[in-house]
């Protein structure tokens, strides 16, 4: 795994955080809505960065045999599925981040969840997340089908 490959996107995230922090330093000049907007930008970008590094280090650990994915029943957001709890949590968070629509439509059916949104990756980090989803199949009994408008998770029959 090469972190340097993501340098451009990481720079962009860092810039956004820096610019946000600079703006908040002079918060008297900002309206309450602007302060809220900047705070949300910081929060969202922090979430993305944290998730990126979490996934990145998890893959590194798995590759070095430092982490063994478990295969058990997991309950996330009232949905019961089969796989590794940590990986499943990352999968759900990635789907939320990749989604470009304000609303993400989730349709749970037996052994299957269909996420409907807009999932086209727009930068290297988002592409990394898509690759992570594809890799997640290897570490669990999960089947993941990804298109630009739909992500389908299915399990149990493999």
């Amino acid at each position, binding site marked *: 795994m090469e972190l340097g490959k993501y340098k*451009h996107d990481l720079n*962009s995230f860092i810039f*956004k955080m820096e*610019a946000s922090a600079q703006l908040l330093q002079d918060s008297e000049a900002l309206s309450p809505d602007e302060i809220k907007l900047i705070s949300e930008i910081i929060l969202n*970008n922090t979430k993305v960065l944290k998730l990126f590094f979490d996934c990145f280090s998890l893959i590194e650990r798995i590759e070095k045999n430092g982490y063994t994915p478990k295969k058990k029943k997991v309950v996330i957001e009232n949905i019961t599925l089969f796989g590794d709890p940590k990986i499943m949590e990352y999968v759900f968070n990635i789907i939320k981040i990749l989604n470009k629509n304000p609303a993400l439509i989730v349709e749970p059916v037996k052994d299957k969840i269909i996420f409907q949104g807009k999932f086209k990756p727009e930068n290297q980090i988002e592409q990394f997340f898509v690759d992570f989803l594809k890799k997640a199949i290897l570490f669990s009994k999960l089947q993941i089908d990804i298109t630009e408008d739909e992500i389908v998770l299915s399990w149990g029959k493999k």
Partner: protein
Amino acid sequence: MGKKIIIIDDDRDILDLMRIRLKSYGYNIFTESSPIEALDRIQKYQFDLILLDQLMPELSGLEFIDLLKKRNIKTPVVLMTAYGSLEDAVLAMKKGAFHYITKPINFEELKIIIDQALELSDLKKELTELRSLLYKEIVAESSQMKKILETAKKIAPFDTTVLITGESGTGKEMIANFIHNNSLRKDKPFVAINCGAIPSDLLESELFGYKKGAFTGANTDKKGLIEEAEGGTLFLDEIGDLPIDLQVKLLRVLQEKEIKPVGSNKSKKINVRFITATNRDLKKMVEEGKFREDLYYRINVIPIHIPPLRERKEDIIPLARFFIKRFCSKYGIPQKKLSDNVKNKLLRYEFKGNVRELENIIERAVLTTEGEQIEDIPINVSKRYNFSSDLKPFKKAKEEFEKNYLETLLTYTRRNISKASKVAGITRAQIYRMIKKYGIEA
């Protein structure tokens, strides 16, 4: 109001952060995450600067610059490129971008670049306005004016004399200037003199200059206007007002290409092109013995007649729009539009003072209208057809009315015959018949 800047970036966070930051510098910020939609917006509304991201999924910044060029949009562009992609930045500048800035953006640096770009943009705008004032853009939508400009352009390179005729305010000096600017003499002076505005006893010394001591008050030698125009063009307006004795002297200048300043015995060779103009009937003046026949033929090598504005109604609205633009820029007020009512009124008005009168009307309207639209103009339009002072036979007057009405109708309906038929309440066939009868361009 701050300068209008549009930021185009597919990253909405960047757009929000830049908007907040740049707004604090006093700019008026607009954002767009889709370059395709941004392009439409830029074409519809005037922006002072475009801040453009290079890496976008729909269209790259470089491709966007190409499209701006194709659409003849000259708003300055600052390209935002990723750190290290200097090649893109150089290419963007070759394509006409004003500057580039690398991401992550240093806002202080960006502000300097924005201010420089805006300053340059202001200077360019000013230059264009000054040029248009200097070269006096000619608005010509009517076939008559287009033909005149065509002739003027054709004869411009040749040093022949030109006589421009037409009512006051039709733009005779502008045509003379147009000829000069399209001639080989364009880098030399264009000197204009109104022969009717200078007392006849002063006119000779004004035209030919004088030697020191030629008359009381002549303390030094003074060049005349003919000499001032050396290498260029001398425009003699209202040539019909030139006194007979000066007509003789002017004829000699035209024939011999030399002048003799007042009080001098020596002649001086000159290299000047003469363009003359009048609103009088010179031929009639020749017949009445008020204008020398030999001079008339000498100045009338190429005659150009400019029809009055009421006979070329297609020019009225474009001219009005041109003056609105010019006066709004001159007085620094937002651009205005003409309401349909005003357009209609202008098309029905007689404009005895021609383009000059229209110019004055529009200047007044621009200064007195508060909103974006000019809803009314201070002119009185007679609801009936205005007869000229001589009462004409009914048939002739009717024909004149029909022709005039048809021209106005076609201009108003933009030559849409169906619409014209509806507005006039007559059949399309009747309109076609009248078009044929009066030889009007359909």
